[in-house]
C-alpha cells in the first residue's frame, strides 16, 4: 500500500504520470482497431441469440443418469424439432427446443420426466413466444436511445457539451466492445445479457463522470493563467484521478467477478452468469475508455475552441519568453506569482458556495489546479511556500467550521 500510496501522491502532484493525452492517437488507434474487429465480427459471425429471442422452449432437468444423446432423442422425437442439449454441472441438462408451442412443450416435458424418471414438477421449463425476444430487444433499443439523449443533456448541463459528447462516444465505444466480445467469443445473448448491457450505460459513465469531475475542476479558468495549456492540465488531472478511477473500477468489478464465478461455476450458466458476463466486459471497457478515450477526446474537442487555441498561443509565447529569460541567466520569479494568483482566482469562483470564507489563495491553489509537468524540477521551493500557511490555516478553519 505504501508504495501505491506514494505513487498516488506522486501522481497527484504530477511528479509521476503517463502522458495519456500526448499518446492519445496510439490509444485511439487501439480502440478503432477493436471497434473494427467488433463490427467485422458482428457482420461476419453475428450474435449468437439465445432461445429467448428466437422463441421456443428451454428445459432444465435435475441431476440424472440420462445422457445428452438420450435426452436429445426424446426431445426431438416428441417435439418434432431440433433440440440442443447441453450438460450443466452435476449431471444437469439444459435442453433447448426451437419453435415449440405450448401444448408441445408440456408433452416434451412429460416425456423428459418419464425418460429421466423424475416428477414433472422437477423439470424447469421456460417457454418463450417468438415475439417476446423482439419485444425485449425493441425495449432495450428504446431504453438505450432515451438514456443516451437524457444523459447527454444532463452531462451538457453538469459539465459542458464537449464532455457530454466525449462521454457519449466513450459509452458507444464500451457497448461496441462488449458486443464485439460477444460476437467473437460466441457467448449466447439472452435477456440477461441485455440487462447487463443496459447497466453498463450507467456504470461506464460513473467512471467517466469521476474523471470528468476532476478534469472540470482542474481546468476551470484555465485561460486566466499562462503556465500550462489545457492539454497539460487535462493530462495532469487524469493522472491525479487515476488512482480513484482504478479503485472505483476494481471495486465495481469485484462483485461482478463474484457473480461470474458463482453464476458460471456453481449454477453452470443462467441469468446470473449472463448479466455478470456482459457487465464484466463492459465495465472493463468502461474503465479503459474513461481514461484513454474520453478525456483525450475532450482535449481534442477543446482544442478546436478558439479561446483555448488563443490560450495555447499565449502559453507558448510565455514559455518562449521564459526560455529566453532563462537563457539570459535570469530566474523568473514573476512566473510563480502569476501562476499561483491565477490559479487561486480560478478556484475561488469555482467553489463559492462550498467555501464561504475563502481561505488564503495558497491553500486554495494547492487543492486544485494542476502544475505543468515541467514543475517537477523545483518542488521544494514551492512546497515550502505553500505548505506552511495551508497547514496551519486549514487546520484552524476546519476546526471552526465543524
Amino acid at each position, binding site marked *: 500500500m505504501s508504495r501505491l500510496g506514494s505513487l498516488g501522491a506522486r501522481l497527484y502532484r504530477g511528479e509521476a504520470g503517463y502522458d495519456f493525452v500526448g499518446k492519445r492517437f496510439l490509444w485511439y488507434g487501439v480502440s478503432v482497431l477493436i471497434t473494427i474487429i467488433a463490427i467485422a465480427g458482428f457482420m461476419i459471425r453475428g450474435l449468437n441469440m439465445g432461445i429467448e429471442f428466437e422463441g421456443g422452449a428451454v428445459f432444465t432437468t435435475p441431476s440424472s443418469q440420462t445422457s445428452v444423446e438420450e435426452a436429445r432423442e426424446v426431445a426431438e422425437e416428441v417435439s418434432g424439432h431440433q433440440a440442443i442439449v447441453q450438460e450443466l454441472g452435476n449431471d444437469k441438462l439444459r435442453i433447448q427446443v426451437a419453435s415449440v408451442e405450448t401444448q408441445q412443450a408440456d408433452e416434451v416435458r412429460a416425456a423428459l420426466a418419464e425418460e429421466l424418471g423424475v416428477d414433472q414438477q422437477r423439470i424447469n421449463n421456460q417457454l418463450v413466444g417468438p415475439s417476446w425476444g423482439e419485444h425485449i430487444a425493441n425495449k432495450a433499443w428504446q431504453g438505450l436511445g432515451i438514456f443516451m439523449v437524457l444523459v447527454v443533456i444532463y452531462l451538457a448541463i453538469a459539465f459542458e457539451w464537449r464532455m457530454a459528447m466525449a462521454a457519449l462516444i466513450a459509452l458507444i465505444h464500451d457497448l461496441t466492445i462488449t458486443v464485439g466480445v460477444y460476437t467473437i467469443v460466441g457467448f449466447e445473448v439472452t435477456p440477461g445479457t441485455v440487462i447487463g448491457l443496459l447497466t453498463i450505460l450507467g456504470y461506464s459513465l460513473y467512471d467517466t463522470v469521476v474523471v470528468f469531475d476532476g478534469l472540470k475542476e482542474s481546468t476551470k479558468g484555465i485561460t486566466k493563467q499562462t503556465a500550462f495549456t489545457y492539454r497539460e492540465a487535462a493530462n495532469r488531472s487524469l493522472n491525479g484521478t487515476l488512482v480513484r478511477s482504478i479503485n472505483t473500477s476494481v*471495486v465495481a468489478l469485484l462483485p461482478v467477478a463474484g457473480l461470474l464465478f458463482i453464476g458460471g461455476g456453481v449454477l453452470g450458466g443462467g441469468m446470473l452468469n449472463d448479466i455478470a458476463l456482459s457487465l464484466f466486459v463492459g465495465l472493463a471497457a468502461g474503465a479503459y475508455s474513461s481514461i484513454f478515450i474520453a478525456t483525450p477526446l475532450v482535449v481534442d474537442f477543446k482544442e478546436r475552441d478558439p479561446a483555448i487555441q488563443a490560450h495555447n498561443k499565449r502559453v507558448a509565447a510565455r514559455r518562449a519568453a521564459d526560455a529566453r529569460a532563462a537563457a539570459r541567466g535570469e530566474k523568473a520569479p514573476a512566473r510563480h506569482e502569476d501562476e499561483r494568483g491565477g490559479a487561486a482566482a480560478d478556484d475561488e469562483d469555482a467553489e463559492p458556495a462550498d467555501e464561504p470564507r475563502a481561505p488564503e489563495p495558497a491553500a486554495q491553489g494547492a487543492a486544485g489546479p494542476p502544475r505543468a509537468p515541467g514543475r517537477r524540477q523545483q518542488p521544494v521551493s514551492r512546497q515550502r511556500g505553500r505548505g506552511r500557511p495551508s497547514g496551519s490555516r486549514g*487546520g484552524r478553519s*476546519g476546526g471552526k467550521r465543524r
Partner: protein
Amino acid sequence: MAAPKTGRRSQGSHGRTWRPLLLILTAIAALTGGMFLSGHTTPRLGIDLAGGTSITLEAKTQPGSENAINSTNMDTAVNIIERRVNGLGVQEAEVQTQGDRHIIVNIPKGTDQKTAREQVGTTARLFFRPVLTYEVNEPPAPSPSPSESGDKDKGSGDKDKGDDASGSPSPSETASDEASPGDDATEQGRALSEGLAQADDSPSPPASSPPAETPQPPAEQAPTGQIPADVQKKLDGLDCSDPEERTKIGENAKPTDTVVACDTDGAYKYALGPAEVEGTDVDDASATYDAQQGSGWIVQLEFSDKGSDKFADVTGKLAAQAPPNNQFAIELDGEVVSAPSVDESITGGRAQISGSFNQESAEELANVLSYGALPLSFEESEVTTVSPALGDQQLEAGLIAGAVGLALVIIYLVAYYRGLALVAVVSLMVSGALTYTIMSLLGPGIGFALNLPAVCGAIVAIGITADSFIVYFERIRDEIREGRTLRPAVERGWPRARRTILVSDFVSFLAAAVLFSVTVGKVQGFAFTLGLTTLLDVVVVFLFTKPVMTILARKRFFADGHPWSGLDPRRLGARPPLRGRPRRVAAAGPVNPKEV
C-alpha cells in the same frame, strides 16, 4: 494537541454531526420495527427463487379495435384472470399488469399449474350462434378436449364488452323483468332477424324432443341453406384438421358477422350466423354430472334476466326451423363446443353445454364462463416454470455470489484503505440493512418480489455504493497530501466528493429509471433494485459516512495518521506541514520521500 484548542468549538458542532447519524439510525430502527410488526421479515421471493410458474401474457392487437389495449381493459383483464385463477383454488397467485400491454401471472409452487395456465390464457368469448350449415371436415383429426381449445386466444376484440365482462356472477342490476320482445329490440335482436331471414328459405318442420338441448350428432352432409357466397367459399377452403387454422379462423370475427368455425376436435366445420346471445348474458355457470340423460359432465348456464328473455326468444324461433337450421352453435373462443338442435323455446333462463367433457374440463369451462370473458385476447409471451429445488439453489447461489463479491470488495478496501475500510464496511452494512428492510416492506407494500435479477442488481450495487466511499476517501487523502490534518481534510474534501458522488449517482439512477420504465418482467426487478440502492447510496453517504468521518477525524487513531488508519500522511506522501501537527509529522518529514 489540537484537542484542547478545538474542544469547546466542537461541542457546538457535535449536535450537527450526530443529528444525521441519529436520523439514519432512527430510520433503520423504524424500518426494522415496521418489518417485524408487519410480520414480513424477509423480502418476498419471486417465482424464480421460490419456485412456481410465471406467465407473461401479451395483449394482442385486433384489427379494427387498435385502441382496445388501454388501461381500463387491462385492469379488467387482470381482475378476471385473478378471479379465475383463485376460483380454481390456486392460492396466492398474483396477477399484475406490466408496461402497457403485458400481464404477468405468478403462480406459486404446489398448485395445479397446468390448469391455472389454461385458465389464464383463455379469452372465454362465448357466443350462441344459429347454424347456417355444416360439413364434415375431410381428414379427421385427433380430438383434444374442449377446454384445451382455450389455450389459443381468439375471439374478436370488442372493447365495449370490457366492463360487462368484469361483472360479478351475481345477477346484474340492469336486468329487468320485462318480457316483451319489443324491449329487446337491441342490435342483437336485429341481427337475429337478419340471421333468421337468411335461413328462412328452407322448409321448417318443427320437431319435438326433450326441452333441454341435447347434442345432436350432425349428419354427414347437411342440406345447405342459403348462405352468402363468400362465407360458403370460406367454408369450403377451411381445413379444420389443422389446429392452427382452426384457431386462426375465429380470430378476428365480430359477434355480428356471419362466420365459419370448426368444432373443437376438427371433425366438422360450420357456417354460423351472427351471435344471438353472448357470454355476457350468462350470470353463472356450474359443472354437473348429468346422470339422468347419460350425457356425462355438462356445464350448466344460468342467464341473466335479459339473457334468458333473449334466449327464450331465439330458441323459439330456431325451433321452428328445419335441420340443420334448428341447431344452435355454442361457440367458445372461435370454436364450436357443441351444436345442439332446438325443439322448442327454452324459457327459465337455463341452458346446458354438453360435449365430451370430463369432470375437470367441465369445471374449468364453468369457472371461466362464470367470471366472464376477457376484454382482450392474450398470447403467452413467456412461461417459466421453476422447481422449488432450483429456486432454492438459485437463491443460495445468489447469496453466495453476494458474499463472495462483498468479501472481495472488503479485502480490496482493507488492503488499500486499511482503517478507512472499516468506515466503508460499516457504511455498506448500513446500506445493506436499509435495502433489506425496505425490500421486505415493499413486498406487501407494492408487491415487490425479489427475483434473481434483483439479487444480481443488489450485488452489483455493492460496487456502486463502495465507489462513493472511494471517491470521498480519495478526496480526503488528496487533502492530506496537501499537508492538511485530518479534520480540515475531511471537511474540505467533502463538498467536492459530494458533487462527484451526486453527479455519478444521478447518472446511475437515470440508467436505472430508464431501464425500469421501458422494460417488463425480470429486467424491471433488476432496474428497481439498482435504482433503490443508488438512492440509498446517496442517503448513506450523506447521513452516515460523512458524519462518521467527521467523528473519526477527532479520534487519535485516525487523526494522528496511525499506519493502519489508511490516513498516514507519510504513507500518503504528504508534504510535511511545519505547523499544526508539530512533533510526529514534522519528525516524519525527512523520511517522507524515501519511505516505502
